[in-house]
Structures are given as structure tokens and as C-alpha cells.
């Protein structure tokens, strides 16, 4: 307990200079590096895009205000955390660490997983800060298309321009919003649903279990994309909301299966028996005693599912069944570049790379979480 407090360094001057520096000086490389990277990158955004940041006050658009908020929050967080942690509050020897604390310590040791976490944080920051990272508009088409269409990658247009002369880099930045938010919400829906169905099915057993699991079997028999295409085709104009809901409502069965098999063994355990003996009702037992104990596998499934859903959404928008074309989504941009693949390879190539890196990030985190949360599953 005292090792952390004993090392309390009173170096307010250093801490104020650079976030993460006090941590680095004390050998806390992970914390120090993270804070420094965060602080410096935010400063870089501020420095290189200062006029764009100023434009926030005149543009009057919500996403720019959100970006400003993110920028300020990230800057404050970097310095504040650096100062607070420098105070030696991060004592390592916490007596009787909880399961989550142990898992976090395990996760931190896994370098690929931490890399994935960095990638993910960077992605979300980029998504929120998009207006400050580019001076172009993602959907605006300039009048003089011929002079700007299909320009190759250059310092002006980092990833070239597409057939309407729009900056591909800008479109990918804004497309990240669509892909990440659709993925996040759809996973939230499908994980919640899958956990509930799986827990109910496993806990009650009998007829309930049979009926629910037959339904799950049926849903799983459809190739995912085929089922999604069929259901989305029912709507005249697939909007983001519809796509998210359909994704969430069709992808839960695999989670339900995982949760069910966990619950089957959990329900025979003594503490559940004790809860039942105390006369607790089934909803309370499921929500308070069963579900908290299956959260580990569920979180792993959610993280891996996030990467999967981003791939599926990209496929759907590639087929023109997700967001409508002027809105940039990674799949839409790839499809835009398809007809001019030879003349302008950059239009299709870069959004694909963005997808690969995003999915890699989530897969790395998912694998790391699996190792951290359930050592039995270590491959």
C-alpha cells in the first residue's frame, strides 16, 4: 500500500509541462506514453487545424461543437490525469483486487491487445474530431468537377479524389462515424437481446429452452448477409435507423448460444441454489445473479462481434442496402470506386484499408479480453 505513496513526487512543474512525463520518469511506461500521446496529438490537431477550430464558432453545426468539446475534454483529461496520477494515487498493491482489476492487469500485459485499444481510442477520437482533421466537405460536389475528379494521392488530397472530385480522405474520416456508430448500436442491441434470451433459455430449461433454441437454430441456418438482405429489401428506403435495428435484431442468436451454455453450468452452482432458497424471484436471480456472472464471455463476444458487424455493414452498404450514396460509409466509398478501379485505384483501396485496421483493432482487443477474462480459453 505504501510503495505508491512513498514515491509521491512533488514535481508540479514537470507535470504541468507535459502530460505523462511524471509517469514516464517513474517508470510507468504504459500510462506515461498514453497520456503523452493523447496530449501531444490533441495539441497537434489544435496547431495544424487552428483556423478550422476557430471556424466552429461561425459554422453553427452540431458536429463541430462536438468536435470542440472532444478536443477540450481530451486536452483537459491528458493534463488532469497526468497531475492526479503523479500524486501517487496509482498504488499497485490493492488488497483483495476484484476480478475486473485482475483482468485489467492481465490485459495490460498483452501488448497486441493494448495496441488494439490504442487503435480503437484513436479511431473514436478521429471520428469525433473529423471536422478539424480536414478542410474539405465529405458530400459537397464542386461545380468544376472535371478539374478535380480522380486526382491521385498528393499532399493536397492525401488519398486522392473520387469521380465527383470529393476528397477521399475526408469521406473516409466521416465514413468512420457511420461504420462505428452503426456497429456500436447494433452490437448493443444484439448483445442485450442475446444475453437475455440465452439466460432465460438456460435458466428455465424445458419447453422454454426448446422453443427458444429451435428459433435460434432456424435463424442461424440463414447465412447472415442473406437474411439481412432479405429483411432490408422489405423497406423501400433503408435508413440508418432501419439498418441498425435489423442488424441488431438478426445477429443475436450466436450470443444467445454462448450465454445459454454458460448459464447451464451456472444454474447448478450453490450460490444460485442459495438465491432460490432465499425465495428470490426468477427475474431477480437472472438479472442480479446469473447475468453478472456471464458478462466475461459476453464482453468478448461483443468486441469480436463489433469487428464482424463493421464488416457486414460494409458489405451491405457496398451492395447499396445501407446508407444512401451521398452519405459516406466505407462500403459506399468502395462501391463508388468500383467502376473506375483502373483509372482511380485509390478510391476503393483506402476505405478498405480503414476497414481492415478497424476490424483488426477490435479483434486484437477481443482476443486480449478473452485471454484476460477467461484463462481457460487461452489458445
Amino acid at each position, binding site marked *: 500500500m505504501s510503495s505508491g505513496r512513498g514515491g509521491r513526487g512533488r514535481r508540479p512543474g514537470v507535470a504541468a509541462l507535459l502530460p505523462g512525463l511524471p509517469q514516464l520518469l517513474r517508470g510507468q511506461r504504459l500510462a506515461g506514453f498514453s497520456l503523452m500521446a493523447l496530449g501531444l496529438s490533441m495539441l497537434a490537431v489544435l496547431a495544424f487545424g487552428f483556423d478550422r477550430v476557430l471556424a466552429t464558432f461561425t459554422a453553427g453545426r452540431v458536429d463541430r461543437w462536438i468536435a470542440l468539446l472532444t478536443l477540450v475534454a481530451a486536452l483537459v483529461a491528458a493534463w488532469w490525469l497526468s497531475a492526479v496520477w503523479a500524486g501517487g494515487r496509482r498504488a499497485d498493491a490493492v488488497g483483495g483486487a476484484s476480478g475486473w482489476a485482475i483482468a485489467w492487469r492481465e490485459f495490460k500485459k498483452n501488448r497486441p491487445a493494448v495496441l488494439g485499444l490504442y487503435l480503437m481510442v484513436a479511431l473514436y477520437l478521429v471520428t469525433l474530431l473529423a471536422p478539424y482533421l480536414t478542410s474539405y466537405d465529405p458530400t459537397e460536389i464542386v461545380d468544376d468537377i472535371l478539374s478535380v475528379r480522380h486526382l491521385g494521392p498528393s499532399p493536397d488530397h492525401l488519398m486522392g479524389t473520387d469521380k465527383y472530385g470529393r476528397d477521399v480522405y475526408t469521406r473516409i474520416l466521416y465514413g468512420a462515424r457511420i461504420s462505428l456508430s452503426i456497429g456500436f448500436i447494433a452490437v448493443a442491441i444484439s448483445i442485450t437481446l442475446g444475453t437475455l434470451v440465452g439466460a432465460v433459455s438456460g435458466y428455465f430449461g424445458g419447453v422454454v429452452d426448446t422453443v427458444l433454441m429451435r428459433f435460434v437454430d432456424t435463424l442461424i441456418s440463414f447465412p447472415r448477409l442473406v437474411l439481412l438482405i432479405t429483411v432490408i429489401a422489405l423497406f423501400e428506403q433503408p435508413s440508418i435507423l432501419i439498418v441498425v435495428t435489423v442488424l441488431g435484431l438478426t445477429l443475436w442468436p450466436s450470443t444467445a448460444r454462448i450465454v445459454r451454455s454458460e448459464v447451464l453450468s451456472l444454474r447448478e452452482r450453490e450460490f444460485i441454489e442459495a438465491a432460490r432458497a432465499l425465495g428470490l424471484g426468477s427475474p431477480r436471480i437472472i438479472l442480479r445473479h446469473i447475468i453478472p456472472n456471464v458478462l466475461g464471455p459476453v464482453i468478448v463476444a461483443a468486441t469480436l462481434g463489433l469487428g464482424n458487424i463493421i464488416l457486414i455493414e460494409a458489405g451491405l452498404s457496398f451492395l447499396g442496402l445501407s446508407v444512401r450514396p451521398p452519405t459516406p460509409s466505407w462500403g459506399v466509398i468502395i462501391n463508388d*470506386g468500383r467502376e473506375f478501379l483502373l483509372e482511380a485505384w485509390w478510391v476503393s483501396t483506402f*476505405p478498405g484499408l480503414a476497414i481492415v485496421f478497424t476490424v483488426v483493432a477490435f479483434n486484437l482487443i477481443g482476443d486480449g479480453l478473452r485471454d484476460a477474462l477467461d484463462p481457460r480459453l487461452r489458445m
Partner: protein
Amino acid sequence: MTAYIVRRLLQAIPLVLGILTLVFIIMQAAPGDPLAIYMQPGVSPEVLEQMRENYGLDQPVHVQYVRWLKTFLSGDFGVSVTQNRPIASILADRIPNTLLLSGTSLLLIFAIGIGLGIIQAVRQHSGLDHALTLGALFIYSMPSFWLGLMLILIFAYKVHFVEWWPEVLKFPASGMDSVNYDMLGTWGRFTDRLHHLVLPSIALGVSSAASVARYMRSSMLEVIRQDYIRTARAKGLPERSVILKHALKNALLPIITLLGLYLPFLFSGAVLVEVVFAWPGVGRMIYDAVSQRDYPTVMATTFVFAVMVVIANLIADILYAAVDPRIRYEGGRRE
């Protein structure tokens, strides 16, 4: 063994019924009147009413359901609105093409996956092992349709600008056969088809291959640790035969179950890859039907896809029972 097969077949029946019911429900939710195409100025309301009666569309839902089940199960999927052909005959043309593509992919997946998995397991923690693991992670995270486009860009377009590139390795960008396919001999047709298969089957299969390699690696590592392998080594067998003869057999067992797992995934990918490569399969059929709002075709295709998955799962289970006698005595279903 026969008893096991019969039991698995019986289990598949409610599944197919469930699939049919779900398709029916989705179909009922489809917008528009099924007779909408006949609603033209030249068709009188009385005729429409008569047709409604003939098709049984005036009956209550459950009667329609039973009736629809009967026709659907007899293989009558109705007529494609846009192609004006029985859907069953279009499907008969398209299904073999999809099976050819997915089958080739499947071969590729297991050949590459198992091969790499063995190499990684034998050289565990070597530089090669780490490099392959990292590569597999990236390949596993790639969207198949994008990979397809990149393959077309490089191996169908860009290679034509490289002088020394061998002609055989310049692949066609789309389609299933060349223009002069009908004039070729048997061998010519075979190689032409193979040439067209290369890029799409790689695009479709490579991500699953990466994942098979991962499973194979851990399965192999598990087996290598066992006592009988140590015995085989102790009695002086060459390492090669220990790995390829003794270890491989048991390491392959869990891999067979993956077969059933990857097929739905493969068919999902087939939709995208068939669109990218203009491959005339079922996946492209459903895509075309969706863009033309041809609902009867969409439903029939969805049904066919689901049934293909069920059949594939059956085959995988039976295959597994054939190679691993333990499974047959378990009685219940395998999870």
C-alpha cells in the same frame, strides 16, 4: 451409424419447417400486392378479383400458409416477375455455379488452413509462426468484396502492364468462362473455368483459411503434447511421420466441425464475391432480385440458401460421426 444418420435427418425436418415459416412471415411483411404487376389499365378489376381467388389470396393467412407450404415443398417457387421464368428453373441454373465457387473455396480454405496450421504448430514461437499469426489476423479482418476488388486490380488489370509476367497468371476480371468457351475442347473448357475460378475463390476463402489455420495450430499443439506422440518419438520414428501420420489424424478431428461453421459464412461471402466478379450464382441472383424488387425470387433464394446450410451441416455432422466413433454414442446433439 445408420441410426445416427436417421436421427440427424429427423432433426433437420423441424428446422426446415422453421425456415419455411420464417420465410413465409417475411414474405407476408413484404410491401405491395403480389398482383401488382397485373394491375395495368388493360386488366379489369373483375379479372384481378378472379386471379386473387385463383391464387387463394382471399383466404385467411393460415390457409394460405398451408397451401404455400405444399407448393413450396414440391419445388414450385412461382414465377420470377422480372425474368418471366419459373424461379425453380433459374435456381437450377444458378445453384451449381454457387456450389462450384464455394466448393473450390472450401478446398482452398482447408488446404491452406491445415497446411499453415501444421507449419505454425511445428515451429511454435518461431519468427515464421509470429509472422503467420500476424498475417492471418489482417487477412481475417479483410472484407471479402474489397479483397476481390484488389485482386482484380492487381491480377487482372495491372499485370498487363508488366512485361515479364507469365500469361497464365493474368486472370480474368469477371464471369465464369471466356467468350470462346463453347468452341473449346473438354480440357480447354476445364482450364478456362479453372482460370476464372482462381480470383473469386481466393477472395471468398482466404479469410476463413486464416481462421482455420488458427484452429489447426492450437489443435495440433494440443495433440503434440499427448503421450502417444511422445511414444512415437521415443521409438525413433522420424519427426515427419510422427507429425503427418500420428498427430495429424487426431488434430484434424475438431477441424471437421468447422466445416459446418464456415458454410453459412461462406455463402454470405458468396453474395458479395459473386457481385464483384459477376459470377452467375445464387448470390448474384438474390442481389439482382433485391435491386429489381422481385420478392418471390428473393424469398425462394433465401430459402435455398438456408436449406444449403442445413444440408451442409448434416454432411459435416455425418462426416464427423464417420471419422470419430465416439460421437455416435453420445445420444444427444452436439453443441
